[in-house]
């Protein structure tokens, strides 16, 4: 009889979870969809597996472009930057799906003749799979059980689901030396007792877990593994939690880094992940500068960030700003500061929250106002072997719900963010020759003057890319006709950084007549040619 009762509960749990977690795709489904998608658009898309994770999952890369696609300016789009952000995976995959579906439109055809897209739908597949597992918890780390804190390797205890609801939430233990109390704003939320306000703690707080066999210390999350979004070299925290044994240590981060650095044509990175510089652009001078280190966005890049941010608000219609912190070793800042490219990131969705306010209280308030159910596990008493004499309860906000919107909102977010990226892609650097003049200065000597104009909004390279050895510097090159020679000016020279809507003048003194072929730009800006006939 008891057994039957249990199965009934399990059955109910499964049904509700399908309803609540319908729209997001697990790794197998996404892999199948991406393969189908690439097969449906074989001439303009190509699906490759960059590497397999420790968990045996492919890091997919969908390349979308036409012609010599690696020879034109590229944009990289990332999802799954942090494993519990399922929405980002849908935004990146959905971007590719929309773009390919629209690929017959004139707008997208024109775009693809100038820009190539590299879409990485999910760079945290080991972690995001936890959303679809029998035991759900907010997981951000991969399946490689390496920790900088190597002494603790393999000595911990995993979570356990004490109340059998399929979620790892929190555990509170009534205790005279407790540290937490129910919040005054929402008693479901536990907050640290404030000694300054004369509060006494009533509860000890732990993640949901059973007896640990680790020396009387209660269970804690000791699972190894590395978070993609903590493993990058900018502001990397040595020995940080889930940061890895060193920066860029993981198969997936290393493969992504190698791919990005090998593709000199990529000039901008869009990450759908926890960092935000679209609702709220980065500010120059926001961090104290080191001696040679650049730690805040540079001024002209800030201008572009502000432009892109305002387009973001216009196109997506979002309001407010997400409360985010730039965690150490995050991908978005790395792509800017260490990769030297334009870098943009948005979580795509957030709930209204004031900076400094308790985020759980804010979330529950938002959930109530928007009629969102199935987001909280009410505190429920359990028997706990570690605390036989004490009242132990399990409960709290369910994993994933604070970082991911309800399923029915996903398609709208995906669509508006697709339109946004598409529009920003149109702002790529775009070179043209203007003001070409030849002056005959006599004695078969001619002065050739021209300007290279960037009619795009993005600079030929981001200002942060200027000192970075791994950013290509376009040249301007003259090919002279037989018998011609340059009396003054270099035949090959650096184009220099040309900001959007600006131009730069070049002058040569040439002796002799004939056609001069002039070429400028490179794979990160687009290449243009012209021929000047001196006769």
């Amino acid at each position, binding site marked *: 009889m008891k057994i039957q009762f249990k199965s009934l509960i399990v059955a109910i749990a499964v049904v509700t979870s399908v309803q609540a977690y319908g729209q997001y795709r697990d790794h197998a489904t996404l892999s199948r969809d991406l393969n189908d998608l690439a097969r449906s658009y074989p001439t303009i898309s190509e699906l490759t597996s960059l590497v397999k994770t420790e968990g045996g999952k492919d890091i997919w890369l969908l390349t979308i472009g036409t012609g010599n696609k690696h020879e034109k300016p590229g944009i990289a789009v990332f999802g799954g930057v942090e494993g519990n952000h399922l929405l980002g995976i849908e935004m990146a995959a959905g971007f590719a799906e929309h773009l390919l579906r629209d690929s017959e439109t004139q707008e997208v055809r024109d775009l693809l003749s100038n820009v190539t897209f590299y879409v990485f739908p999910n760079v945290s597949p080991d972690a995001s799979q936890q959303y679809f597992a029998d035991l759900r918890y907010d997981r951000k780390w991969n399946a490689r059980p390496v920790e*900088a*804190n*190597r*002494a*603790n390797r393999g000595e911990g205890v995993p979570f356990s689901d004490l109340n059998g609801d399929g979620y790892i939430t929190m555990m509170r233990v009534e205790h005279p030396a407790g540290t937490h109390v129910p919040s005054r704003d929402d008693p479901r939320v536990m907050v640290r007792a404030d000694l300054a306000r004369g509060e006494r703690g009533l509860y000890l707080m732990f993640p949901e877990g059973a007896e640990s066999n*680790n*020396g*009387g210390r209660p269970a804690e999350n000791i699972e190894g593994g590395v978070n993609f979004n903590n493993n990058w*070299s900018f502001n*990397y*925290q*040595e*020995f940080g939690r889930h940061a890895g*044994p*060193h*920066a*860029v*240590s993981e198969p997936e981060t*290393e493969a992504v*880094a*190698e791919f990005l*650095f090998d593709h*000199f044509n990529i000039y901008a990175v869009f990450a759908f992940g926890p960092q935000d510089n679209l609702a709220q652009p980065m500010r120059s001078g926001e961090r104290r500068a*080191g001696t*040679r*280190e*650049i730690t805040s966005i540079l001024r002209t890049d800030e201008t572009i960030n502000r432009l892109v941010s305002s387009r973001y608000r216009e196109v997506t219609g979002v309001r407010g700003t997400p409360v985010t912190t730039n965690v150490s070793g995050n991908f978005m800042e790395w792509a800017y*500061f*260490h990769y030297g490219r334009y870098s943009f990131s948005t979580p795509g969705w957030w709930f209204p929250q004031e900076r400094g306010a308790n985020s759980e209280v804010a979330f529950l308030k938002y959930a109530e106002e928007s009629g969102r159910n199935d987001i909280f596990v009410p505190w429920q008493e359990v028997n706990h072997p570690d605390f036989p004499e004490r009242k132990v309860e399990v409960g709290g906000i369910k994993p994933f719900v604070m970082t991911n919107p309800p399923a029915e909102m996903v398609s709208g977010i995906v669509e508006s963010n697709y339109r946004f990226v598409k529009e920003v892609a149109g702002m790529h650097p775009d070179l043209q020759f203007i003001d070409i003049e030849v002056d005959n200065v006599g004695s078969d000597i001619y002065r050739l003057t021209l300007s290279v104009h960037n009619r795009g909004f993005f600079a030929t390279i981001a200002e942060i890319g200027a*000192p*970075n*050895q*791994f*950013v*290509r*510097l376009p*040249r301007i090159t003259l090919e002279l006709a037989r018998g011609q020679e340059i009396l003054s000016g*270099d*035949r*090959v*020279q*650096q184009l220099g950084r040309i900001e959007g809507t600006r131009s730069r003048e070049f002058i040569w003194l040439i002796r002799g007549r004939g056609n001069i072929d002039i070429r400028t730009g*490179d*794979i990160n800006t687009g290449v243009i040619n012209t021929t000047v006939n001196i006769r």
Partner: protein
Amino acid sequence: MKIIVKSIVLIATIALLLPVASNAQRPSPELFFKAAGSPVNPKLQVSWNRYHSYDGIVDFCERLERKHPNLVTLTSVGKSYEGRDMILLTITEKGDTEHQHKPGYYVNANIHAAEIQGSEMAMYMAWYLTEMYAEGNVFIRELLRDKTIYIMPTINPDGRENFLWEPNTGSSPRGGMVPRDNDRDGLFDEDGFADLNNDGVITQMRRRNPDGDWKTDPNDPRRMIRVAPGEQGEWELLGREGQIDEDGDGRADEDRVGMYDPNRDWGYNWRPNYVQSGASQFPFALPESRAVRDFGFEHMNIAGVQLYHNTGGMILRGPSVQGGGSEVYSREDNMVLDRIGRIGERMIPGYRLLTIWSDLYTVWGGEYDWWHGAMGAYVYCNELWTGYLMFNEPGRGDQYEFDRLLLFEDAFIPWEEVDHPVFGKVEVGGFNKNFGRIHPGFLFESDAHRNTAFCLLHAYHTPQVKVDDIEIEDIGGGLRRVTATITNDRMMPTHSGQNLRYNIDPPNYIYLDGGEVIAGFIVNERNHLGNDFEQRHNPQRMEVRNISGQSSVKVRWIVSSGNRFTVRVESVKGGRDSKEVR
């Protein structure tokens, strides 16, 4: 038919090799009389007054392993970019104890391609250890019984070969052979030096020019000296041999092979190229440093590290950046590094103990920081060769005088006229690439020995845990109190400050086997209140976070049964020991 021909060739080859093989036998012992401190008639005869190519290093290591199979194991830890094996000599007395269970000492060299003498010094150490062991030297025997010495003679074999056989200066290349687009134009390594006189060396270029500010030294035609104010010049100096703009971009020799720094590629305190020039795209981007990293993670027993570089006569210690970045240097760490380093200054005349960031320059992402910061080892980086050694005088020494008096001008390539495509007639000449930064042959062995002796001092002082003394007391009620003293009589603690701060290694584990353990304590004898630390969890395996250098800890158990007890200690960097009592 073919097979027959082959076997004939084979027999002929064997016949040819045989006399060589017998020549390689040790000469008759009555031919020699022992000099103090050196093997009198080594199994492996080596001339320590020349340098080995990569193949020469491999050959040396193979022969050393064959001569000393009881001590030496030769393996490869990975492949270089061009596919050469990254070779490792593991040297220890092969017995019941696995090499990873002894405190480890690690030496590598030649991370910078042109800094080749570190390889020879590392090989000298391998040779000296094995030959002196074979001769029965007591110190070396104990050292190889207690410790494992890991030696990688070159961790940049590609760069080494390029330095030796391609036209280079005495400092080029710095890196390995991974292509790098230094001038960022989409072409890789397309604009290098030019060996105008085809002698395999890049020297200096001078051009006759009465407006120049240089003249020939009247006392030494090899030497160029600056003209005095008002004096007529004779030459202009045009820089390094080359200065040809191969890629036509208006700049010469700006995208050469190996123009990067493998010693800025390490995943600790790493910074990108625009902060730390020479750095790669991300930490451990190079196959060679990755191979060393993987080796390191598998050999956490390594407690002491020497990284051989050149040049300048320095025993370098960290920190490499002001404040240490994310590194910790505890008081004990500083004491250990300074004490061993100061002794080193006496052992190696002309060498000074210096701190990298304050005495030299800031280095981000250096190998030093990785071994210290990520692995918790005590590290030195010796900058081999100093001008002091030319005349045993402080200062840089006069290279021309030294070359003339002691090398008979073997190190100088005489000035020679060649045609330069841009400058016209120029003269090319100067010191050979084998002089200036690497040792002249006759001075090598003495300096190699001194540096080796310093390394062996360093290796000796890696921590060594021992179960010293066990007392058993009957305390009634069928209970006994077992107290064990665990010592570490070397200078280094089992755990450096960095190790303790970040839990790099587990604590030292001290086990009591053979009884039912009721309780376990770490005894604090200095505290007369008897306030011992009780370890409630699993007292059969006591956890001692650190055993300082030249000190001991006491652990105590209350035991309810058994009368034969074994106390075992396991320390990742301090080795293992056990003792049984009744």
